[in-house]
Structures are given as structure tokens and as C-alpha cells.
């Protein structure tokens, strides 16, 4: 049974169509944990044959077996495997279902766990072995975790996690083309073009050698791989849909050593080496290709209105060659980043009445990216017919220092002073050297045409006053910096073992800065018969060369802006614990700042938090929580106000072993508003000219959200061998927001999400349980959806499985 389950685990993962071999290749990374599973399962199998003894077993063996374990060769083993399948029935929007759930039909290894512990006084290579996994066979989330420990010798942890994320929400990045009188014919786009299918695999290995010894060592390795296709878009005259194949791999190797310098004083050094590579290729995806008069397919991109791709994309049923459009587009980026970090830690409580911990980490990353972009089409405004960026490179660095220290001084058995300090600073110098060749139609042409030939120097090009240089050689220097110093001092007084209070003060100094400097190095304009390029060049401060070309050298964009923010926080907290039956704690935080970074940066903030739990009877637990946070910034015309108000109650009752009732309710009210400025022909009610730019409008932008969450479940055992559960949860969302476009669908502003469930388990034998489960999901948006497809769905999921355990 175990071997069969493991085999199925390896053979049924994933649901992607294709032959056996591609599936096998795809399965290789996931096969590793399955292999571990097989190996581990073989341990008890092997031990079972050799170790099952006669009756008259020791008392500790019987005690272990009574605790749902099995003793084999002096090892206590607890194991379970649940294997079965799921049947999914969906009605409504499959895009929404896949975005939210994506749980499909098929066989599954729902979960598996294995715990092996040696009996006391047994010489064993480990003290504890724990292995669990779930979700195999195609679920969007699956994981395997292995942990083996041997006290004083090693701790080993191995994790594998994979998650699939399918995203196809209509309204994100939606051009939503509506009926138009300025572009004919109207091409409707009612679905989000930015779909994504992301598969993320994360591998972690953590090994600590000789823990608790004078010297201990640590080796970690983690690998994070994100892959998938997605649709993106690019802006070149008009937005074209791109087929994006992305692949990001991050490998991190970490090793370190800890030295117990003194009793209760440990010094630790850790070196971390992180490598990140991002290989993303983009190619033109077909959206609505139109043939030109000569039979050339022209891609006009996503928006078909408001003059884009042009006023009349079709002429006589053929593509208008004067429109913005694409014949081909490719982009290849190879991002490489190497981030080494050194970290030094000191933890000590050797000095009487003092606990100290401190850390310093230094990191210096170096990232390089070459860019190869080739565009063939037409940007009608500038007349660019083709362009390429071969030879363009980008370079960025990350330099950071991260230091913190904390001291706790025990002033008595009930009083302690806690001081913490944190310093964090980073700077990111970035440079992009743009080498772009722009090509235009022949100067003999009357107007730019996507079908016209391209002029190669010294053949004169067709320029306009909006044309960029023929050869663009620009250097963009960017510099971003931030340093933060935070100091918190607090006094804690445990009045008794039942009650404690604390008072604290936190000071934070944030320094932000950015510098921009963009330089032409140089930009070259080729001469054209009308002298347009020379005029443009000279206007930009250029000079005409003897060969007739004109070059511009020097900076064209410069910016430098430092900001310092000082925050002051007052903190107070208290806790009360009346035996184990009643417990309550609360905290208050008040902040005031003298500056801000953006319009929605608070200059004052208040936070209130309280939790309480009450257990009047051993079988009944009641709990409540309250969280309030309010922010404000009334500087200039910002008028920024925001709050998150949350309150919740829960109750768990287990009057006997056969019945458990669980209920919870939670309410969250989120709101944020500030004055924002916008350009729009539709003027929202209450708009006035923008204070800092009276050419656009200013209005109070607001968003409010009320989310009610309720859940209830009852678990019961009607008869000895049967257990059952019924449950229901609902999320009800409603809210309001500023509407700047009356045609705008409101999407997730109002909806209900129902999730009832029922399941039953029948213990067929002592070791085998039959399980059947039903889950129902219903998602229903109530807000205005405009011309977009309804996002309603409901789905019935039926799970059938057998669980084998001992």
C-alpha cells in the first residue's frame, strides 16, 4: 500500500497535457521528495519483517502503541497515507475559478505523514524523524517536508514546495475598449490581456551540525524557481500584446559557524551567496492581425479607440499603413545578480541581569543585464519604422548595512528595561547605457508608412519634429538611498505572575534620497532634406558636424531630492492572565512624524489592539479581538485619512469527545482617502483645479471596504466508527470608491463568497478509514460589470479517499 501510494504520487502529479516523456521530465524535480518517501517507507517495511516480537512486550512499548504508534525494532512509528481523488464540477467563469482555486479533477495523494522516534535508551542515528507531504497529483499547492534531528549531532530539514498560480482577472490591465466613434471598426476587449500562469518551486535544505556544542556549523541551500508563460504588453505607439516566457531562478548557499565563547555567549558568523538569474523572452502575440493591401499581416495592438492605433485602422478593408502597428517584435533579457552577504551575530546573557543580542550584516550585490530588443513596425508620431537596442546594457548595485542590537536589563525579579536599536541603510546605484538605432522611411516618402522601405544612412531618412535621434547613445544614472535608524526604549513591569505592564518610546529617523542624471553620449541625427533633424538637434543644444550629422552631448535630465523624516512613537501595553481561564492583553501605539515621503505617508498614526480569551469550562473557549489603526496626513492639500478597524469573536466548544462546535465572526472596515489630481474630460463631482497644477482636476479620492467574515462548523461522531463535519463560511464585501470613468466596472468592490462543506469518515478497520468530502464555492460580484463577461462561478468539489494509518 505504501509503495503503491508512493508510486502513484510520482506518476500522477501535474495535469498538463502531453506525452509521457515530457511529463516525466516535468516531474523530475517533484520526483525527489517522492523518492525520499519511498526510501522512508522502506524503513518500517524492512523493520517489520525483522522486528515484530512475540507477546509480553515492555510497558513503554505498549504505552507508545496506545498512542497511535507502532513499535518496530525499538522505533516508535506513526504513519498515515491518504489517497483518493477529486471530482470537480464547475459552472460559470472558469477564469475566475482558476484564479481563486484551480482545484481540478483527478487522482490525488491528499496527505502523508511519517514520524519515527527511537525508544528511550536506544542507540539510533536520529532522535526524531518527521516527514509529511500533501497535494500530489495536480493540486495547485503541494509540499514535502522532512526533518531529522539528533540531539547534539545534527538537525536536518529538507523542504520542497510547489505552487501554481493561474491569474486571469478581467479588470487588471484591461484596456476595455468600448464603442467608439474615433476608431472604426471598434474592437472590443472585455477580458484582461495580462493572463499569467506561474509555477513556483522552492527547495530548501538546512543542516546544522553539532548544535549546542562549543562550535557548531550550519549549511543551508535554497533554490527558488519561477517559471511560466504570461501575456504582457509593450508600449510603442500603441500597446501590443506580448507572449512572455519568464524564468527566474534564485540559488542561495549559506554557511556559517557558531562559537560559544563563554557560557551563555555565542558568536556566529554566516556567509550567504545568492545568485539570481532572470531569463525572460518576449515575442509578439497575435491579438487582431489585419492584412495590408500587399498581404503583409499588421498587428495593431490592444486599444482600438481614441485615435489608437489611429483614427481609421482600416482603409478599404485593409490595414491602414499610416497607423501605429507592429510587423514583428522580440525582446530578450538575461538578468544576472550576485548578492554575497556577511553576517555577524552575538548573543550573550553571561553578564548578570543582562541579555544582549546584536547583529551586523553587510551585502553588496552586482546585477548586469544586456538587452536585445528589435522592433519592426511604425510609430506614427515619431515616424520610427524600425529600431534595435543591440549592445544596450544595464548595471545596478545594491549595497546595504543592516545592524541591530537589543539589551534587556533585569532590574529586579519583576522589572526589566529593554533597549533595542536598529540601523538599516542601502544604496542602489544604477546605470543604463542605451544604444538604440532608429530607422525611418525614405525621405522621398510623403508620410510614414509601415509598408514603406527603411532608409539606411547615408540615404536620407524621413524625419519629423518628434523623431528621436537616429543613433541614440544615452547614459542614465540613477541613485536611490535610504537609511533608517530606530531606537526603542521600554520599561516592563510584571506586577505579578498574573499581570504586567510596559511603557516605551520609539524614535525613528528615515533618510531618503534619489539622484537622477541622464546624459546624451552623444545622440546623433542624420541629415534629411528638410533639415528637420538638424533643427531638432540644435534646439536640444547640439552641434552640426562636418559630415552633416548633428550630435547632442550632455545632460538632459537632472534631479536630486533628499528627504528626512523623524517619527516619534509612544507605546503602552498591558497583559492580564487570571490562571489559564482568562487572559487579556492590549497595546496602544501613537506616532507623530515631521515629514512624509508621498501623499499617503502618515504624519500621525494611532494603533489600538486588544485580545481576550476566556475558558469558563474546560470544553468551552471564547475569544475576542480588536484592532484599530488610523493614519492621517493633512499637509498641503493632501487631506489623507485612512483607517483599518477590525473586530472579531470566536467560540470553540467540545462538550464531549463526540462533538465539537466552532464559530467565528470577523469584521474589517478599511478606508483611505486623499485628494488626488487627475486629467479627464469627465469631471467627477466636487472637483476643483489641482492646487499644484491648475491644468488638471483635484478631487477627494476615496476607497472604503467593509468585509464581513463568518464561519461555523460542527464536528461529531454519531457512532463509534463514523466521524462527520459540516461547515460554512462566507465573506461579504461591499464598499465605495471614487469613480473617474462612468463606464468603469467596479469589479471586486462588492461580492459574496460562499464556502460550505461537509465530510464524513468511516473507520473500516483499525487502520483504514474511508473519507468523503464535499466543498462548494460560489463567487458572485454584485457591482457594475459593464460589458465584461460575468465573473460569477459556483463549483462542487467531491473528494473520495482512503486513509491508512498506524
Amino acid at each position, binding site marked *: 500500500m505504501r509503495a503503491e501510494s508512493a508510486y502513484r504520487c510520482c506518476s500522477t502529479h501535474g495535469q498538463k497535457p502531453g506525452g509521457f516523456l515530457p511529463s516525466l521530465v516535468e516531474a523530475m524535480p517533484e520526483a525527489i521528495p517522492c523518492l525520499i518517501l519511498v526510501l522512508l517507507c522502506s524503513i518500517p517495511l524492512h523493520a517489520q519483517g525483522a522486528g515484530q516480537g512475540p507477546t509480553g512486550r515492555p510497558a513503554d512499548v505498549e504505552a507508545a502503541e496506545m498512542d497511535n504508534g507502532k513499535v518496530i525494532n525499538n522505533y516508535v512509528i506513526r504513519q498515515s497515507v491518504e489517497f483518493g481523488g477529486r471530482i470537480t464540477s464547475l459552472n460559470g467563469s472558469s477564469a475566475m475559478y482558476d484564479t481563486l482555486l484551480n482545484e481540478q479533477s483527478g487522482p490525488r495523494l491528499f496527505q502523508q505523514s511519517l514520524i519515527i522516534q527511537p525508544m528511550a535508551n536506544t542507540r539510533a542515528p536520529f532522535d526524531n524523524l518527521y516527514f509529511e507531504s500533501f497535494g500530489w497529483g495536480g493540486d495547485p499547492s503541494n509540499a514535502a517536508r522532512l526533518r531529522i534531528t539528533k540531539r547534539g549531532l545534527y538537525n536536518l530539514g529538507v523542504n520542497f514546495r510547489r505552487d501554481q498560480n493561474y491569474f486571469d482577472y478581467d479588470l487588471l490591465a484591461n484596456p476595455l475598449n468600448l464603442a467608439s466613434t474615433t476608431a472604426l471598426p471598434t474592437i472590443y476587449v472585455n477580458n484582461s490581456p495580462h493572463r499569467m500562469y506561474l509555477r513556483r518551486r522552492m527547495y530548501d535544505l538546512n543542516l546544522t551540525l553539532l548544535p549546542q556544542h562549543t562550535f557548531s556549523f550550519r549549511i543551508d541551500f535554497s533554490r527558488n524557481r519561477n517559471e511560466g508563460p504570461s501575456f504582457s504588453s509593450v508600449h510603442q505607439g500603441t*500597446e501590443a500584446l506580448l507572449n512572455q516566457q519568464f524564468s527566474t531562478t534564485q540559488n542561495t548557499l549559506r554557511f556559517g559557524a557558531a562559537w560559544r565563547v563563554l557560557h551563555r555567549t555565542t558568536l556566529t558568523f554566516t556567509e550567504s551567496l545568492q545568485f539570481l538569474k*532572470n531569463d525572460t523572452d518576449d515575442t509578439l502575440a497575435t491579438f487582431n492581425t489585419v492584412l495590408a493591401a500587399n498581404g503583409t499581416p499588421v498587428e495593431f495592438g490592444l486599444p482600438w479607440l481614441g485615435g489608437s492605433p489611429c483614427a481609421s485602422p482600416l482603409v478599404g478593408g485593409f490595414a491602414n499603413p499610416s497607423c501605429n502597428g507592429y510587423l514583428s517584435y522580440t525582446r530578450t533579457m538575461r538578468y544576472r545578480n550576485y548578492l554575497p552577504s556577511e553576517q555577524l551575530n552575538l548573543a550573550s546573557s553571561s553578564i548578570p541581569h543582562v541579555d544582549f543580542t546584536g547583529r551586523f550584516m553587510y551585502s553588496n550585490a552586482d546585477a548586469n543585464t544586456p538587452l536585445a530588443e528589435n522592433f519592426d513596425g511604425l510609430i506614427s508620431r515619431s515616424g520610427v519604422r524600425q529600431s534595435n537596442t543591440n549592445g544596450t546594457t544595464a548595471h*545596478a548595485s545594491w549595497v546595504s548595512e543592516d545592524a541591530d542590537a537589543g539589551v534587556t536589563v533585569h532590574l529586579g525579579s519583576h522589572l526589566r528595561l529593554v533597549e533595542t536599536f536598529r540601523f538599516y541603510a542601502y544604496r542602489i546605484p544604477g546605470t543604463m547605457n542605451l544604444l538604440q538605432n532608429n530607422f525611418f522611411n525614405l525621405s522621398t516618402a510623403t508620410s510614414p508608412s509601415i509598408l514603406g522601405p527603411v532608409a539606411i544612412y547615408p540615404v536620407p531618412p524621413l524625419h519629423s519634429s518628434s523623431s528621436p535621434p537616429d543613433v541614440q547613445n544615452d547614459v542614465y544614472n540613477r541613485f536611490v538611498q535610504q537609511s533608517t535608524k530606530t531606537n526603542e526604549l521600554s520599561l516592563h513591569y510584571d506586577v505579578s505572575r498574573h499581570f504586567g505592564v510596559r511603557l516605551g518610546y520609539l524614535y525613528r529617523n528615515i533618510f531618503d534620497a534619489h539622484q537622477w542624471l541622464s546624459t546624451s553620449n552623444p545622440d546623433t541625427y542624420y541629415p534629411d532634406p528638410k533639415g528637420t533633424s538638424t533643427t531638432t538637434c540644435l534646439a536640444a543644444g547640439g552641434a552640426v558636424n562636418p559630415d552633416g550629422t548633428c550630435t547632442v552631448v550632455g545632460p538632459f535630465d537632472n534631479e536630486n531630492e533628499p528627504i528626512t523624516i523623524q517619527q516619534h512613537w509612544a507605546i503602552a501595553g498591558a497583559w492580564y492572565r487570571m490562571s489559564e481561564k482568562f487572559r487579556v492583553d492590549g497595546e496602544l501605539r501613537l506616532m507623530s512624524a515631521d515629514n512624509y515621503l508621498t501623499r499617503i505617508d502618515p504624519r500621525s498614526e494611532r494603533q489600538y489592539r486588544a485580545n481576550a480569551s476566556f475558558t469558563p469550562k474546560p470544553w468551552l473557549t471564547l475569544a475576542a479581538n480588536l484592532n484599530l489603526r488610523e493614519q492621517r496626513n493633512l499637509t498641503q492639500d493632501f487631506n489623507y485619512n485612512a483607517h483599518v478597524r477590525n473586530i472579531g469573536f470566536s467560540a470553540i466548544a467540545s462538550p464531549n469527545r463526540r462533538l465539537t462546535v466552532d464559530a467565528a465572526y470577523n469584521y474589517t472596515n478599511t478606508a483611505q482617502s486623499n485628494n488626488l489630481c487627475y486629467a479627464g474630460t469627465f469631471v467627477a463631482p466636487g472637483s476643483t483645479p489641482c492646487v499644484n497644477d491648475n491644468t488638471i482636476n483635484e478631487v477627494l479620492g476615496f476607497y472604503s471596504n467593509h468585509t464581513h467574515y463568518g464561519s461555523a462548523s460542527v464536528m461529531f461522531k454519531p457512532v463509534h466508527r463514523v466521524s462527520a463535519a459540516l461547515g460554512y463560511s462566507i465573506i461579504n464585501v461591499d464598499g465605495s470608491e471614487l469613480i473617474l470613468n462612468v463606464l468603469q466596472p467596479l469589479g471586486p468592490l462588492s461580492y459574496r463568497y460562499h464556502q460550505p462543506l461537509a465530510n464524513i469518515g468511516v473507520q473500516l478497520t483499525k487502520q483504514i478509514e474511508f473519507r468523503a468530502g464535499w466543498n462548494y464555492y460560489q463567487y458572485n460580484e454584485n457591482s457594475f460589470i459593464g460589458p465584461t463577461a460575468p465573473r460569477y462561478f459556483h463549483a462542487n468539489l467531491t473528494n473520495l479517499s482512503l486513509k491508512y494509518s498506524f
Partner: protein
Amino acid sequence: MEDCRRESKANPDSATYFRPPARKWFRCFALASAFFLCSAAALPATTPPPKQPDDQHLADPTAGSKFVGADTCKGCHSDIYEKNFANTPHAALLKDGKHGCEDCHGAGSAHVDGGGDKTKIIVFSSLSPAEASRRCMVCHQSNLENSAFSQSVHLSQGVGCLSCHSPHHAAAPEALLIKSQTQLCYGCHAQQKAEFARPYRHRVDVGLIKCSDCHNPHGSFHDRQLRSADGGMEVCTKCHSEKVGPFSFEHMPVKQEGCGGCHTPHGSTNPRQLRVSQVNMLCLQCHSPIANRDTPEAPSFHNQSAKYQACTLCHTQIHGSNFDEFFFR
């Protein structure tokens, strides 16, 4: 420490203005470390390993008692010993030549001689959370994971080791927890439980990730006891590695304010876990002109009413770009 003071008075116009003082802060850290090491080394009382874990500044009802051995404890507490100790990681203490039960509960001779006198032995339920935790930390503080516990928010709110861990009655196979980690956290953090039930959320409830992947329940120096990634970057970048950067063109709030500036980390009612339901609203909240700042405003040709078009349709690389200052590619 002089270096620390000099840093705070740095002239903003100087050439070193934009250079983080790495060496200065390292020297500060090294000086502080050296001070603690020297101070600790100078204490003769701490040089020999103590006979009992509660050697220094903890009230000790077992002072003067002698160790009697775990077998003696087992004589009266056989039930706890066999069911709730022998198969726990702490049982390995016996194999290391240590004292087993008495390593935590103190030497037991007076307790035995007193016929089981509870006042002569350390009973954890009679201690405050801070006192009980300090006894655990005698062994567990050397682990980096726990080293900041005495400064943690949890302890300051009366949540000690035994609030989550049970050496004798653990219900979860991991770290002697009294419940599975997620359910344990939900016990107090009910708001987060509700947030993880929202349609757009991190997959905590299905077990893919755990609270402790992002937070260190034993304390950290970050807000909300968050962990950090290499380089001190936000913990989010451990999984969302494509957002790490550095980029030639940084969208500055991503680094300066963090992911939480636009996203709600646990769960959201909005796609992409955004803080608001419309992308354009999110952008305009910041990209409106400010009198004395260079924050770029949305240009006048971005007519909000001509068509409904999300900002991210064109500004696709909104987390940072290597090739376009407007995040087009």
C-alpha cells in the same frame, strides 16, 4: 561610539553624503560586541559552567538542593516520565550525561526529602511568563532564532515559551508546540485568520507556507517581528525573487515603503492583494503633484475618462525596470 555620533551629524552637502557608513557601523557593532565579551569574560562567577541552569539571577526554590537523578523522579512521576518525557526531544538530555528532569525543574533532593514538597521544586505554572521563559533560554538562547526573545513583542505582551510550547504535552510533532503552528497563531491573531480566508491570499490555510516563514515568533528587530531576506530586503523577496532587483530604474516606493505600500500581505478582497480595488486609484494617490517634491504626476494626456485603461497595461514593469524609466519594459 564617537563614530556613531559623527554619523548623526553628517553634513548633507558633503561628498560622502550618499555613502552609507558601513565601516563606522561595523566598528560600532564590533566595539559593543567587544565590550560585552570583555565584560562577560571578566566575571569569574560565570567562567565555570554552572551546576544548575538557573544559576544567576533567577529566584530558585531549589537552592541548596542536590541532584537526585531522573530515576528518582520517575518513581513518583512515572506517568509523565514514560508518556510525556521519554519520547520527547528533551529525553535526550539523559543521554548527554545531564540531569534530565532536574535540568529544568531544579535539583530535587529537598523536594524528595520534603515528601514531594512543591515549594522545593520549580513549578513552571507558578512562574510569570518572563521567569519561565528565562529558564528555557538558559539552553535555547544560543540558537539565533531565539536570541532576541527577551526583547520580543510576544514576551512584552505576556506570551512566554509555555504559551506555545509544551515540553510534556505537545500536540504537534514540530518543536513541541501545543497545536499546529497555524492554529496556534490563529488562537490570538484572529484578524489574520479572517484575512487568510479571503479570496486573494497567501496559502497558509492549505499548509504551503507558515506564519513563521515570514515572522519570527521569538522576536526580531523588524516591525511585526518580520524576518528579512539577504541584504536586509523585505521577506517577501524570498519567494517573489523576480521583484528583488536591484534595478537600474527603481520604482522608489517599492524599496522605500516596502511591498505593504500597495499590497496587503495576508489576504485581500482585491486581486493581486492590492490595497484598493482599482489600479488607477492606487497610482493616482501618489502620482499627484506635490508643491515641493519631484514626485512625478500622471501626465495630462492620461485622460481618465476617455477609456478605462489600467496604468499597468503600459507600465508593466512597475516593481522596477532595467531599461525604461517609465517601466514600460
